[in-house]
């Protein structure tokens, strides 16, 4: 009876891990999996078939190939944004939480202000002015997405700071930096990972949404761009669901896998672990 209760949560985590690795492998080994090249042209608007698993688009490119290669960009943007913004968030959170006082007020004030800026509209404006590119998107998203990570890390750091071993380290004469990285950091790793997962998920949804508007990198087709083309070039109106549903579902599934993986990091109080709660990614 005991095992049954824990199993449910384990299923979620395993499925999440499996999906995540699957997508990662597809992205990495795209060249081997894709049947054709991105630039290859065939008859346009072909439906699903044996040769073209997802048919072809308006200029005859094989959609399955686009779909496989699209995973690279989508995952890249998501993961890099996650890495960068979480790094920024951790640094800021650590500093604010550890020093407290004026530095904390200042950093949290900045965080609050940035939190109130509507992100997607801002990126829309910036991308409209500048030439849309993957680099720009990663850069801007990293600068805007660190806020909730910073907040969470800050409160945890403050909690840890008030615990005994930090004080003793201070008394022993260790420098602030040393304490930060050797005493506090290991304790917040368990929080950083779910923050990372959720940031990646949110960044992917945003990248897909922005690409859907046509603000994605035109030379590097992400899943969002695929859907944009489907919508723009008659794929949707002609009922060619195989053009936009696979990339769209993949985004959903990848985000789902991130959410499932984050279950592994939840602290359940009763210790029975049968219920799972989700911290939302309101980003």
């Amino acid at each position, binding site marked *: 009876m005991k095992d049954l209760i824990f199993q449910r949560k384990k299923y979620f985590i395993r499925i999440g891990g499996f999906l995540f690795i699957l997508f990662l492998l597809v992205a990495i080994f795209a060249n081997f999996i894709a049947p054709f090249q991105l630039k290859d042209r065939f008859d346009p608007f072909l439906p699903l078939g044996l040769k073209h698993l997802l048919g072809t688009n308006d200029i005859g490119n094989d959609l399955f190939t686009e779909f496989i290669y699209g995973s690279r960009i989508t995952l890249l943007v998501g993961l890099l944004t996650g890495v960068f913004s979480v790094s920024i968030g951790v640094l800021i959170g650590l500093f604010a939480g550890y020093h407290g006082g004026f530095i904390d007020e200042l950093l949290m*004030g900045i965080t*609050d*202000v940035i*939190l*109130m*800026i*509507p*992100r*997607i*509209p*801002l990126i*829309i*404006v*910036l991308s*409209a*002015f*500048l030439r849309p590119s993957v680099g720009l998107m990663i850069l801007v998203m990293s600068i805007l997405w660190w806020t*909730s990570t910073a907040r969470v890390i800050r409160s945890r750091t403050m909690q840890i700071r008030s615990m005994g071993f930090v004080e003793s380290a201070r008394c022993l004469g260790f420098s602030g930096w040393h304490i930060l990285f050797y005493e506090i950091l290991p304790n917040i790793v368990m929080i950083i990972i779910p923050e990372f997962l959720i940031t990646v*998920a949110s960044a992917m*949804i945003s990248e*897909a*949404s922005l690409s*859907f*508007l*046509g*603000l994605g990198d035109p030379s590097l087709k992400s899943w*969002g761009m695929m*859907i944009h083309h489907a*919508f723009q070039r008659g794929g*949707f*109106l002609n*009922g060619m*669901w195989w053009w*936009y*549903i696979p990339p*769209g579902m993949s*985004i*959903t*599934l990848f*985000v*789902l896998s991130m*959410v499932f993986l984050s279950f592994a990091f939840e602290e359940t*109080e*009763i210790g029975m672990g049968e*219920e799972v*709660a*989700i*911290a*939302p990614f*309101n*980003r």
Partner: protein
Amino acid sequence: MVFPAKKILRYIFALFFIITLNFFLPRAMPGDPVINLLGEDFIAGKEAVEKIREELGLNRPILVQYANYWKNLFQFDLGYSYHFRARVSSLIISRLKWTFILVAPSLILGTIIGALAGSLAGWKRKSKGNTFSFFFFLFIYCSPPFFISLLFLYFFGFRLGLFPLKGFYTTGNWIDILKHLFLPVLIMTLFSASRNYMVMRGSVLQEKEKLYVWYARAKGHLEDSILFQHVFKNASLPVITLFALDFGFLFAGALFIEIVFSLNGMGTLIYQSILSRDYPVLQGTFLIISFMVIIANYLTDWIYNWIDPRVRANR
């Protein structure tokens, strides 16, 4: 209700920052500031461009320009769109009401549905209903709003022919308008409900373990009444906070839904402006949306203070 000075300061500062950002953007971005201020649709000869540059005050010192910018803002002057041939402010106002028609009922319904379903899911032991609702809302939660729109529109519009695919509203026929609005409102409602559901569920799961719940039982409360009389109020606090943070995302979601369904609101305005690089409209909408987000934050803060007595007392 008095707010602490610190909080009001942050709102004012945010407002100030965004307005200033909006001022510097067209002047800092690459390209001719004249074009950046007027949009790519503005085509004129060299002399005319210089004349416009003079008119726009681009040759004056920055601070003077800044002051004029503020002056214009107070007069609700957000510039002129050459693409749409209309003042940006009137464009936005005319579109805003359609966005409002989509967003207002959806947010209200979505909050209620999400909060109710989420609290039931968090409170009761596993049941078929709760498992279903969990996976259903999880799916919506993980999907980009534009994709859900495409999916729904495909199934209900294209396949089942229940709803129209494009075009709207100039007919003025009530039934026609409702037909066009049904799916978008449904999707927006589900979208906002999914977020409320997740937070509420998590929040109730946490509150469930608290001592006051146990004590309510010890006083003789029946299970169902404990959820709504005791837990709900406490559990909704994080939901309210998150709503403030989430509003920007929710609103952006609404814009995407509008675009997919070709509704006549801000979403399609932005979409067309992107295509035509109509910078004044893009900037104007960014400003207005920012205002709304700040106001939403302020209102949610206010509501939170009203509900949680612990905050009220710390004045």
